[in-house]
Each structure stands twice: as structure tokens, then as C-alpha cells.
């Protein structure tokens, strides 16, 4: 998307889209990322807790 704007900077590995596209992608990544960490680190259902038990302890997330 919007390749005319960012071809010049794409090669440097920097942002490759216009600001609104960046914000949408960043918002989605933030929501997904936090949900994942919550699920593995904090969610209470016992099956999730037991499956992720050793990881929670190893990373210092409050467990039990």
C-alpha cells in the first residue's frame, strides 16, 4: 500500500506505510500481544494455568 510514498525508505527497513496504516497495525499488534501475554501469564482457568504453569513461574508472573 502507498508504495509511491515509501519506496525510498523501504530499503532501509523503516516504516513502509502511511501513518493511519501504521496506527492500525500497531493497535492490532498491541491488542493481540497483550491478549497473548494475558492468556499465557495471567488467565485463571485451571487448564490454562496448568499448561502454562512452568512458564509462569520461570518468568516471574504471579502463579497460584
Amino acid at each position, binding site marked *: 500500500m502507498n508504495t509511491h510514498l515509501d519506496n525510498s525508505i*523501504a530499503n532501509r527497513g523503516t516504516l513502509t506505510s502511511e501513518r493511519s496504516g501504521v496506527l492500525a497495525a500497531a493497535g492490532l499488534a498491541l491488542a493481540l500481544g497483550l491478549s497473548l501475554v494475558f492468556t499465557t501469564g495471567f488467565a485463571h482457568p*485451571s487448564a490454562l494455568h*496448568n499448561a502454562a504453569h512452568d*512458564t509462569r513461574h*520461570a518468568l516471574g508472573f504471579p502463579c497460584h
Partner: protein
Amino acid sequence: MISRVLAAGLLAGLLAGLAIAVLQAFTTTPLILEAESFEGGHGHDHAQSLTAASALLQHAVLKTAANGAALIEIHSAEDAGMWMPEDGLERTVFTSIANVGTAIGFALVLLAGMLLAGDRITETTAIGWAAAGFVATGLSPSLGLSPELPGMPAADLVSRQAWWLATALCTAAALWLILRSEHGWAKALGVLVLLAPHIWGAPHLEGHAESAVPAHLAAQFTGASLAVHASLWALSGFFVGFWWRRLAPASA
């Protein structure tokens, strides 16, 4: 843009999570298993003490005599039917999956932060962000709530989780103010926000509760846990930068 973010986050988390699963297998997991052997009588997850084992065995034998069921009653006797992975390969597999999930989460949060800040995303810059991530989710919370082994007494779980989350958020916001703000007053505010959760204080039990876990195990575990946590962030950051650059759209 969205597919590049998701692909970089997934690949980075997969590689970092698997690598850290190997590290855990040699550092934290043996300590967790050893601590669980002191946990007997708690009726807790994965309890492996001799007393607990013999009690369970007795239970299983009784069950067998009463209803003809086999030894499958052992776990339900301890955990009221809760599923848990079997020790050994199954437990390792689920721990690895949880690691990969956490690492993908860290990688996506890292990407989100760097995109919102408008930073260039390379291995070097992403590792810098990962260092801040470690301070926010590892170092700062550990000052109030030391990484704990199974069998160590602790305050109510929900209150500890709430303090942990608040501390991680405050620390992340404080680091942003201190490191990225131009204004002196904002940096000063950052220092206050950094200290606030520790001045408030983490939830702890009243007095000195007895721990079933020997002190040297607990001390080893705290160090190992922080090292594992730092390594998970560092590798997530490195692979975020690596994949972000390689997934750049082909330019004309």
C-alpha cells in the same frame, strides 16, 4: 503493513520462545520440579513428594477396589478432575507452547511500541526496546514480588496479579517519560511514576510465613528466572528486528 507486523511477530516469537524453552529446561524447570518435591501435603499441582505420592497411590488402589477403575483416578484425587499435562514430554511441550505464546505477545507489543513511536526497526533498536520491556515486566515487578517457586507462601493471587500489571504499566510509562521526553518536568514525573508502585507496596502476607522450599533453591530460582526473562525479551527483540527487515516489501 498488518501482515508484515503479524508475520514478524509470529516468526520472532516462535524462534525466541523455542530457544528459551531449551534454556528453561536447563535452568528454571529443574528448580521448579525440585521445589515441588517439598510441596507435599498442599494438594498442589504436580506434587511429587513421597508422602503425596503414597497417599495418591493409596487412593488409587482404593478406587480400583471399589469400582474396578484403573489408576486414572490419581490426578483427579489431587486436583478434583483438573486437567494438567503429564510430567515429562507432555509437560515440556505445553511449557514450550506457553513460552512461544508469551514470546509472540512480547514481540507484538515491541512492534506496536516501535511503530507508534515511529522508530526504525532493526535488530539493534529492537533489542533496546526489549531491554526496556525487561525492566517493565521483569526487573521492576521482581522488586516487589520475587519470582516464586511452587510451595512458597504468597498473598492473594488476584491482588498480586493486579499489582504486577500496574507496576509493569507504570514502569513502561515511566521509561518512556524518562528516556523519550524532552522536558525536565516530564522526566521528573517519570521518576515518580517509576517509584509509585513500590511506594504503594506489593501485596505480601502478614508476618513471616513458613516456606516449604529451602532458601538456597528460592535464591537460585530468582536469579535464574530473571536471566530467563531477560533472555526471552532480548531474543524476541533480536528476531523482531531480523524478520522486520527481511519481510520488507520488495521495492521497485
